[in-house]
């Protein structure tokens, strides 16, 4: 089998959002990782709510839906799929109940964002509930997706073919993604306004996809970091390959 030789480079990197250039991937493998990041890496999300009191202007179901969408931090080393964590909230109006008011029985599993308004409470209104968060995969319900707008593009190699004709119009050449310049630099197109004629004025340029080089755009909802999401997706493919090998060998 071919010797796997990968090269990974972060073009942009943050805790919650990143662009990662991976060289040496096959299209099938790139797509497998992308799909695994979206549908197979589990996150905690509120699944059951027991209302003690809800005298707000919204129905129990509406609040339940909103609670499910609040991202919860998910330490995947500590939990398995199907595990539950109990959370509770008690807010009395006049006040707004925020995701940050939700108290968790488990310090590691708590709302990733504190400022998401759940419901605004007026004088005399109260919201009190207890809820169970379940660790599940994105293919069970979209609220369990850890990755947000995960996708990839080919790395695009730009080569300068020569000068543009003296009387040719300077036309914009719009390009999105990440390019590899003739000098071998890796540059995101938004650095030059997504317009190649800005970076190479008066030049005739050619753009081609680099085979096997994929630029992943990865964002997470705050459940874990981008690197964690990527590594877990790789793990999930590996687990399945391992399982297949042991089952075939029998």
């Amino acid at each position, binding site marked *: 089998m071919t010797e796997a030789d990968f090269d990974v480079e972060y073009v942009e990197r943050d805790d919650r959002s990143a662009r990662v250039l991976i060289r040496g991937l096959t299209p099938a493998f790139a797509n497998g990782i992308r799909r695994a990041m979206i549908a197979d890496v589990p996150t905690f999300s509120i699944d059951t709510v027991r209302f003690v009191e809800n005298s707000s202007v919204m129905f129990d179901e509406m609040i339940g839906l909103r609670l499910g969408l609040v991202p919860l931090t998910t330490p995947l080393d500590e939990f398995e799929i199907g595990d539950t964590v109990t959370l509770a909230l008690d807010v009395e109006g006049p006040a707004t109940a925020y995701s940050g008011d939700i108290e968790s029985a488990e310090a590691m599993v708590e709302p990733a964002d504190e400022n998401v308004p759940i419901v605004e409470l007026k004088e005399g209104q109260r919201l009190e509930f207890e809820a169970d968060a379940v660790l599940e995969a994105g293919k069970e319900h979209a609220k369990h997706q850890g990755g947000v707008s995960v996708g990839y593009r080919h790395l695009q190699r730009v080569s300068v073919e020569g000068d543009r004709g003296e009387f040719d119009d300077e036309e914009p050449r719009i390009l999105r993604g990440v390019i590899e310049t003739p000098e071998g630099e890796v540059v995101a197109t938004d650095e030059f306004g997504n317009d190649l004629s800005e970076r190479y004025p008066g030049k005739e340029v050619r753009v081609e996809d680099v085979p096997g080089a994929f630029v992943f755009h990865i964002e997470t909802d705050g459940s874990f970091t981008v690197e964690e999401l990527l590594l877990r997706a790789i793990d999930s493919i590996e687990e*399945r*390959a391992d399982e*297949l090998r042991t089952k075939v060998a029998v």
Partner: protein
Amino acid sequence: MELRVIEKTDTELRIEIAGEDHTFMNVLKGALLEADDVAAATYDMNPEQSGGQTEPVLTVKAESGDPLDAVEAAATSITDRTDALRDAVTAA
């Protein structure tokens, strides 16, 4: 993942891999097609639009040798790659 062999000859194999979807099947197919001793490999998520059969069916035709061995080798090549990729991601 539940395996069920549907048809098996010396060089051909049809096997149901229950519980998987395109995420893994396409990676597996890709790995199989890279092997020298595999003549053909494909998978079908909804074979012949048949009512009931919704699990993917993998078909492998080996040039030489047992197609089951080819599947095993493909699984190994996937884990080799995931290992290398994990190291590369951690190092980056």
